[in-house]
């Protein structure tokens, strides 16, 4: 099947071997949890603020940042990991996921803080 491929092309590491795709899907599910939570906040938090007559203090930047962070970190980890070893890719996805978790806690706590300032 690869007989007709020239030697340099077959020697070059593939951008997305099967193992890397499986890895991206598994980590993608974990990133998706944080994205799901952030989208839930974006949908549910503004009405809750309105209910308590805090409609002018809805933290839009934090709500949108919470949605953007998991997407950016997943895409960044996937992009930096192209043509790297599987170990490097695992490290990248894990670091991105951990950063996503930390950022989600930070944004949550900053939004709580801003309500009482």
């Amino acid at each position, binding site marked *: 099947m690869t007989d007709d491929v020239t030697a340099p092309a077959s020697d070059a590491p593939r951008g997305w071997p099967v193992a890397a795709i499986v890895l991206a899907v598994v980590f993608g599910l974990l990133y998706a949890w944080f994205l799901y939570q952030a989208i839930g906040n974006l949908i549910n938090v503004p009405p809750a603020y309105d209910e308590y007559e805090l409609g002018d203090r809805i933290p839009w930047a934090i709500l949108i940042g919470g949605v953007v962070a998991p997407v950016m970190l997943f895409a960044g980890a996937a992009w930096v990991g192209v043509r790297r070893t599987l170990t490097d890719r695992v490290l990248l996805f894990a670091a991105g996921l951990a*950063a996503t978790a930390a950022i989600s*806690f*930070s944004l949550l706590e900053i939004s709580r803080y801003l309500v009482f300032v």
Partner: protein
Amino acid sequence: MSANPPDPVDETDDDDALHWAGDDARGQAAPRLRGGASEGADTDAAHEGADAASGDAAPAIRGRAETALLAATGVFAGLYLALVVGWILSVQLLAYPGLDLAGEVMWQFAEFLSMVAPALWFAVVLTLTPRETSRRGAKRIGWLVVGLALLLPWPFLLGALA
């Protein structure tokens, strides 16, 4: 069970004491410090900077840059250690606001991830900026600064402010 007396050690070649067995096979027979220590000492002593612009200066400058990068990496290691401590203190202040089991499991998983996040970020930056990286210093310091900004332990910092 008679033990043979040890072979007499050949001490005629002092260089043997400064090498590990198998260095030659791995291509590591040469001194491991780059820059040629004996040449550098000779230059410093005899010429007092007269050769600063000559070829001897290049290894010395590279050596200084690598030393500076190593020192900067060490400083960042301390800062990232402080971030880990900050996140360990932060998760003590957090409590899951919901009642569902899945949410609580993921919340606690996220707490664990937050505590290891600075260490993971630091490890990734060091792993992906090996010696042969182009513009290694700028890339490493840049990504370490980005990580430092992203991973500030706001729950603890705001708790300390309040």
